């Protein structure tokens, strides 16, 4: 903690030329941050590209030729499951996009996601995730907090709590939002019983990036106000007992002051070269795509600034319940979602790689569920419903095995037949790569040592290079 006089001087200096001094202060503090990992980390950052609503696994990463052959035939009683919206009379529905074996690894990825497909050799695909309930809110909370009921800290908060910040002037957990809060609400990104500084800071795609980040006053005025505030607060702090809380509250004003310039700086991508804009798709005429690309680019910038956990959410383009939730119009809206996200996610992976950051950054592409390989009836607006018995996600970078797949569903993609995984297994494995033991990363709450994975989770060595 800075001493009073130093801080006073700091603010004084700031008032004669804040910019340079502030950033040097930023830099010097960053080096003092001490990671709290349990063992040596392979990776330092996580970027979660949340495909909320549930992209269809059998149309993206889980190739099921049998499904096309049986298309239109009733699925029968034996294929009905409580883990999907299903009845015996529903009929199989083949993939709406062609699959191809890609790259050196020959990993099968469909044409729905051409840019991501071109990076097949970097992808570690998991095809056997099993959820709890075929419902968005529950699954989203399960994925984020390890419990379908929520009321627990989110994944990002745990990482922030476990590793601390690499950059004192930025939160270690940032949500890059696209004007749509996924089902389950902001609880998906909250710190619950962990200290509040571990909840996600929301950075919006459009308009003012962060609430209250734009100074209400001109800089000189604000500096004068802060100086007066500082003096009055110090007088108060000296007269009261619980000095620590008040000191911390005073210190937060410094951090707030610095965030006012550091965050807009990161959010503003004007200084990125043209080819980077094009790589991500910032030149797109589609506004949804453009803003999604902007958020992906910002994600990379945040990684460079030392942010630990970044989540990017999808925009909602139509009056559905969530972006990838195509109960109808599967082809139209999956194509639209792919247009918005595919190029930018691929660009993010490529860009990290070319900067040598992919080794230390885990990029995760995941929905909260998959979609049924069957449908009530086949027609022009056919869709797929909710399915959590075997859905696909991928991880890239951060020590995950590129060009690989793990877990198997049956010939219809209707249930897991080999190596079922829980999302908590993914949590455990990702934490492991960050140098955190999921069983030891706990917080005392309600008289118990609570963890992200609760009683579940194992480190899935098979996914690691």
């Amino acid at each position, binding site marked *: 903690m800075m001493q009073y006089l130093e801080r006073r001087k700091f603010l004084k200096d700031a008032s004669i030329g804040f910019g340079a001094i502030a950033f040097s202060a930023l830099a010097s503090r960053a080096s003092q941050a001490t990671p709290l990992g349990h063992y040596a980390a392979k990776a330092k950052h996580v970027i979660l590209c949340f495909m909320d609503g549930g992209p269809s696994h059998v149309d993206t990463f889980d190739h099921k030729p049998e499904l096309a052959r049986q298309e239109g035939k009733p699925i029968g009683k034996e294929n009905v499951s409580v883990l999907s919206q299903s009845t015996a009379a529903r009929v199989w529905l083949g993939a709406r996009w062609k699959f191809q074996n890609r790259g050196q690894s020959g990993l099968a990825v469909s044409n729905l996601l051409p840019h991501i497909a071109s990076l097949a050799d970097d992808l570690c695909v998991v095809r056997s995730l099993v959820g709890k309930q075929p419902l968005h809110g529950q699954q989203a909370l399960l994925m984020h907090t390890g419990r379908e009921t929520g009321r627990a800290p989110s994944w990002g908060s745990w990482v922030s709590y476990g590793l601390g910040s690499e950059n004192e002037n930025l939160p270690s957990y940032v949500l890059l939002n696209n004007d749509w809060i996924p089902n389950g609400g902001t609880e998906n990104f909250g710190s619950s019983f962990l200290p509040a*500084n571990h909840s996600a800071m929301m950075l919006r795609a459009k308009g003012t990036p962060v609430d209250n980040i734009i100074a209400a006053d001109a800089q000189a005025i604000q500096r004068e106000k802060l100086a007066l505030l500082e003096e009055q607060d110090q007088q*108060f702090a000296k007269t009261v007992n619980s000095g620590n809380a008040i000191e911390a509250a*005073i210190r937060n004003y410094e951090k707030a002051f610095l965030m006012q310039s550091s965050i807009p700086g990161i959010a503003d991508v004007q200084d990125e070269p043209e080819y980077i804009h094009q790589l991500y798709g910032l030149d797109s005429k589609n506004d949804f795509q453009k803003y999604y690309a902007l958020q992906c680019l910002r994600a990379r910038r945040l990684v460079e600034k030392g942010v630990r956990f970044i989540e990017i959410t999808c925009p909602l383009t139509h009056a559905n319940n969530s972006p990838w939730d195509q109960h109808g119009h599967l082809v139209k809206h999956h194509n639209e979602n792919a247009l918005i996200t595919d190029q930018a996610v691929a660009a993010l992976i490529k860009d990290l790689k070319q900067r040598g950051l992919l080794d230390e950054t885990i990029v995760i592409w995941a929905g909260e569920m998959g979609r049924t390989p069957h449908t009530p009836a086949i027609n022009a607006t056919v869709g797929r419903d909710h399915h959590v018995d075997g859905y696909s996600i991928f991880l890239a970078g951060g020590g995950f095995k590129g060009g690989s797949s793990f877990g198997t569903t049956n010939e219809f993609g209707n249930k897991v037949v080999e190596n079922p995984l829980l999302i908590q297994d993914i949590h455990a494995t990702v934490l492991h790569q960050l140098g955190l033991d999921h069983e030891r990363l706990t917080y005392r709450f309600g008289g118990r040592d609570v963890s992200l994975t609760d009683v579940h989770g194992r480190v899935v060595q098979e996914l690691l290079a």
Partner: protein
Amino acid sequence: MVEYFVYTIVLLSCLSASLQADDESSQIEFFEKKIRPVLVSKCYECHSAIAGDVQGGLLLDSRPAMLKGGDSGPVVVPGKPNQSLLYLALQHDSLEMPPKERLPVEVVQNFKEWILAGAYDPRDAPLDPQELASQIWEDTFRQRSQWWSFQPVAQVDPPTITRNNWSGLPMDRFILSALRKQGLSPSTRADKATLVRRLSFTLTGLPPSVVQVKEFVNDESPGAWTALVNLYLASPHFGEHFARHWMDVVRYTDTYGYEWDVPAKGAWRYRDYLTRAFNADVRYDQMVREQIAGDLLSEPRINHEMQLIESHIGPMFYQLGEHRHGDSSEFEGIHQEMLDNKIDAFSKAFQGLTIACARCHDHKLDPISQAEYYALCGAFMSSRWISRTIDTTQRNMHVKRQLGDVRRQLQMALTEVWLADLQKNIHISSLDDIQPATALAVGDINHPWNQIFQLDGDPLKRKWLSMLEMYQMQDDQAKAYNDANYTLVTDFDGMPADDWHLDGHGIEQIIGSGDFTLHQGDQFIKSLMLSGIATSRLSARLNGTLRSPLTRELPHDFLHVLVAGGSQSAQRTVIDNAFLCEKQAYYAHDRYQWKTLNLHKGQQDRKTYIEFATKTSNPNFPPRRGLGPKLTREMETSAVSWFSINKIYAAKGPGAPKKRFTAFIELLKVATPNNKEEAATLYRQWLMGMVKAWGAGVATSDQIQVLNNLLQTQWITKSASHPELASLIARCRAIESQILPPRTVNGLADLDAGEDYRLNIRGSYYDLGDPVPRGYLRLFADELSTSTSFNSENSGRLELANQVASEKNPLTARVYVNRVWQWLFGTGIVDTPSNFGKLGNMPSHPELLDWMTARFMENNWSTKQLVYDILHTATWQQADHATSMAMEFDPNNRLLHHYPNRRLEAESIGDAMLATAGTLDRKLYGAPHNPFRTAEDEMKRLFTGPVAGNQRRMLYTKVSIMEPSKFLSTFNLPDPKISTGRRDIANTPAQALTLLNHPFGIEIASQWADGLIQRDDIDPRSRLQSMLATAYSRKIQADELDRWESSLFRLSNLRQTKQNDIMTNKQLWADIAHVIFNTKEFIYIR
């Protein structure tokens, strides 16, 4: 099981057991007291029939099993401890048992002694796992029941303190005694200005006025403090502030969150109910009863001034919390989760227990079995989850009477006008004129004329007679068909059958046929009502609900309802008490139609009922966006909504009953016309006869149907501007506009036989065990009683309420007294206020807590008396200074060696700004306003509200689960999904950013400045002095003023303000106000 229990109780009464090999009773005693409990608690988990995976093949749950032993052979050799593996393992010799835990030496010694004496063991045969489990539970239950908070509230005497010149008050003596034990002493008394500010914020959440501070500081009289305390206790803002405290505990919300954030109907009325209750100092046990079973109290609490049944608002408590997904009846799991949340909130709020932890298995640490969780589920789910009218019948009584009178006059006038209309309009030519080219349907008002209008003389007569025959035949057939296929369920000719339930003041009496809804606009009448029930008999702004019995008790699969309705009235099918019911069909037809309802009788295990409700009485109105009719915001909030039901039949099939034609037979039967002229006369007389019958209130249903048909024609007037009617209609409307809209609140109703809930094995709703009788915790039952089920044939909620609100319940008053202490000190005597179980923390002053609890109950559970007493202690009046020694010994101040200063709660920060700026609107109560938002979301009704919240207290900001006020959340408004006993006080940069840059602070600062520049302060310094004194409620020092003054001048330079303009420059003063709002002193109480 019972036998075993009694048996061990007897044994426990022996103080010690010694072992004499020749005396069987002493053998039994020794085994039961010293051996069995150890085996049960330390070994059975891995070595008994209940162990999932028996370790080493060894069972220790019966004598034969022990003697036989496991993989390593016998474990007990009677008489030879050193050859008994069990004894050796307990010694942690070669084997170590229990693993990771070495039992105390005397326990091991007991085993040695027992084996030496022959290892007497009455457990002849192994028990089945279930019995064993219950035996183990008995043991566990007894042990856990010993926990401090489950013991009766002790009668304690305050300690006697020698050399006490601090305070002789009993509470202070407890505190002082504990401090002295640690060699500590209390702090000095806080200065008077600090005390006023502390008192004002603590009791009302608002800062004191400058005048109040000054008066108290200058008041040297001995009663000054008492007068001040009484003043604040009497403030209406006391109720608001304490209501907000309780709202944390019951997870208050105005919306249901999840995907659509639908509104929680009546939540804010419950908020206002709490405010009134705290202000009126309603006994806490009464408040408990009301919130658990206010709808079932034999003498509900009535608020005569507001014509409100207060007690009926209480059960809104259950209806708070998140309501997930569309219709929870469609998804297993969601419903159970929501119920879990309700049980969790109930047990934490009223009992400081975590009963919800027993959903999947017996509680891990407290004496709460899994079965007890499900016993409570049954109590909660036996009631229906409905919306209830909370108005007394007196409300609107006068207006309704007046309206009834004028409407009768209107009906008489209308009869005359219509008779004249018919006299004038019904003639051959007019009847002929309107005949269409195509034939009309049988039953159309014009059908008979349509059949004869081209005839005359004999052909006409013949046609007339054949029509009579045709109508008679069709009517006979219809009657026969209807009699054969339809069972009349209820026709509302009298009050409905007992199992049909009414609620609402539009619907309280059965109507005769012919009443009508008085519509707005020139066409004031659209149709006449059939006899039956209707919410709009007097006004469409009154409300009503009709609820069916459980459909499984109805005779057939389909219901056929003859109904008319409009303005978003709805028919709802509620399955398994879905907390959010989306099976709602909205009515928009002024004329009666047969509606067919499929009762889903195939799903026999489901509990279903049908409900007809005006939107005001529909617990799930407005529905989520996109479901149901498209609604404007006006439609969502206006009270206009109505329905009218004549008959309900049950049938096997979906087809509606056939139409009857008695009214037509009347026409055709009365005479046979010889010519067209006579026919026209008959026609006219027929219609006039019906109008007369209507005017006299004796029209039959069939006649009303014809009159409704007549209303579709131009023959009788429907215009509100008709000269004979205009003034009466205007009067009706004027009176109607005085009707106060109905007040409804979501709650519970006991309408059906209680239904026990089936235990979910390991918490799985796919794996159902036996139904568990509805009841409450055995922990609170009389000693020795193992039966705790309710006697009620309904839910049992009233018994539940009485068990909770009982002086004998060791937790209810204790938990509440501790909460009040926390509200006044920031931390409770138990600092885990909602967990008094094993995982909660121990009380810092257990005897003080019991002493206060006993007094609280003696003092009629009066919150205000308790608050008054605490505020008079020297403990509460201490300064917030502590010695360094005190801080070293007790850094968390658990012993209260000083008054703990702390940051204001979120709402108080906003309220303090408004109050300090002098722009706070102190009005109480009312619907919430939206929080200020930077972006709106139409789909979720997340609209933005005024930046400064209409100048009202933050309490009146809408709490949305989906997106609560960001300003408040930043300052730790609790998560509205779960019960919060104690708010977080986090310290984040977002708070600094909020106070610096959020438009709220800027706006209020500017409002303050608006007022300041109007004042004729002498100079900047005196104005600064006054501002700071208002903000901090204390005397301002000269050096402080220097600081503010020089900063003001620097700001004026930066803003290029001329010296002479400083006093009138609004921006400058807003700058100063803004800085004040940002100071820590402003947001701290000390």
